[in-house]
């Protein structure tokens, strides 16, 4: 069997919470095990405070697990004796795009920002030039190379942030609720970029989100509630358990809900759907008496 790209083994993470009276230790992530294969597109779904963002930060070594092991390409990243170079190498391999587009751009000119990562890695300037141009083309922002980031829309800023990560030539990108602060247009732009990177560049994608419609686009959905994985599978399989999802503060896409309601009302609908086209097809067939 091929080795997992990211392997999480019984990982827990505890933090101190002040509930107004006393400090209490709480588990943000509790005994989680998860394997992600190379080239996979995995959505991690959970409500706010479910521990999904903590999981992302553990993989990128922003947090260190309280217990358990995390391996990236077979390398134990929880090893305390790792050299700075190893850490840099891993950060370059697994890039991360955050939630707030304003708080991750460093430079005052778009192309300078995209160049920031490669500059840190000490890449020669001709090579940086090429990478910056390629990365901007990948997210469709070539036109804006010389713009100032603060004049761009949220979706555009977020695509610049993605370009800044791609320019480091990562093998995996973690998106930590990268669409949460965007309007529908911006969300669509960013989702298109993510899908393109996964399909065309075979970049492994781990996308943390609470939008069902976005999770439905992934190859695999992992649902986290209260720091634990409660469901893991293809979107269709996961969204089948509508009640369980609702119990942990999530919902399902409207069309999944419609199909469920119809089959409860005696319609002859067997399968599951997560997108409008297959939903319409299924209804159409069920109506053909």
């Amino acid at each position: 069997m091929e080795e997992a790209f990211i392997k999480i083994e019984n990982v827990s993470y505890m933090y101190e919470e002040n509930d107004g009276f006393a400090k209490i230790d709480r588990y943000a992530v509790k005994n989680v095990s998860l394997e992600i294969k190379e080239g996979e597109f995995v959505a991690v779904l959970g409500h706010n405070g479910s521990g999904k963002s903590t999981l992302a930060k553990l993989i990128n070594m922003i947090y260190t697990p309280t217990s358990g092991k995390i391996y990236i390409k077979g390398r134990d990243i929880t090893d305390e004796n790792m050299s700075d170079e190893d850490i840099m190498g891993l950060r370059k391999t697994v890039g991360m795009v955050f939630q707030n587009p304003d708080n991750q751009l460093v430079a005052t000119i778009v192309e300078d920002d995209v160049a920031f990562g490669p500059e840190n890695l000490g890449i020669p300037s001709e090579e940086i030039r090429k990478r910056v141009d390629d990365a901007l083309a990948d997210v469709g922002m070539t036109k804006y190379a010389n713009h100032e980031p603060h004049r761009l829309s949220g979706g555009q800023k977020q695509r610049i942030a993605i370009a800044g990560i791609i320019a480091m030539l990562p093998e995996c990108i973690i998106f930590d609720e990268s669409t949460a602060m965007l309007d529908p247009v911006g969300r669509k732009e960013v989702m298109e970029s993510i899908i393109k990177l996964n399909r065309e560049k075979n970049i492994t994608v781990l996308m943390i989100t609470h939008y069902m419609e976005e999770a439905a686009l992934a190859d695999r959905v992992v649902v986290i509630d209260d720091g634990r994985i409660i469901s893991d599978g293809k979107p269709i399989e996961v969204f089948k358990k509508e009640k369980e999802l609702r119990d942990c503060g999530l919902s399902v896409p409207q069309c999944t809900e419609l199909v469920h309601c119809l089959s409860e009302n005696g319609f002859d609908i067997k399968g599951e759907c997560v997108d409008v086209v297959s939903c319409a097809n299924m209804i159409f067939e069920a109506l053909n008496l």
Partner: protein
Amino acid sequence: MKNIAFGQYYPARSPLHRLDPRVKIILTILYIVCSFLCKNVWSFALLAISSIMLIILGRVPFKIILGGLRPVLIVLIFTSIINVFWTKGEILLLEWRFIHIYLEGIFSAIFIIVRISSLIIGTGMLLTYTTTPIALTDALEDVLSPLKKVKVPVHDFAMMMTIALRFIPTLVEETDKIMTAQKARGADFSNGNIIDRVKALIPIIIPLFVSAFSRAGDLATAMECRCYQGGEGRTRLHVRHMRFKDFIPLVLIVVFGTGLVLLNIFAPGFTMS
């Protein structure tokens, strides 16, 4: 609010805008030195002409230059008055009770005005009007890089400047939003006495600080994730190579300075006392 202009940069296409910013920094320093070389009427005349030429070369409208001089207007007027009334000389122009005005006094007043305006116009035209703040920061890092040898954290200062420039518009926009939100709750920033007004600022300053700190935290994490480890081992996207034509202005300013000195020595005329 998104379009606030910070710094004095005036976008235009001109030879001064195109000049390598590192050369411009050195030119500015030399120009300041030159302005202090002037001693007599002829060298000051040359200085004034050079300032006007810089304005023309940089294609910045006179109106903007005058605007830039406005803040020092009071200083200019004050020093000229002192010079006119207190300079003693040989050629007496006017005598009335205790007031004695000499021709030398008039000239020293003019000299002071020319020197201060040239200083302001020179740095403005060579640096602030024609160079974007970010290019200026990068160039400063380059020019000061010899100091790295004596452990001056030049790169860190440059990085701080860059981040400040990047976040000024964001924070201005945020201040605007917070002010609007508090106004909607009945805050009043324009009425009342000083104490009331300072008090009215608290609901703006606290949220602004809270947000700036959380932004700083986020940014630090994001920079770390992009492998930032300080200036060590960093390369640059834009590497500026000095070309032959970048040296021409440096030669010109040396010629200019020499010219001033020669005029001081060989051209007779009113000398600054």
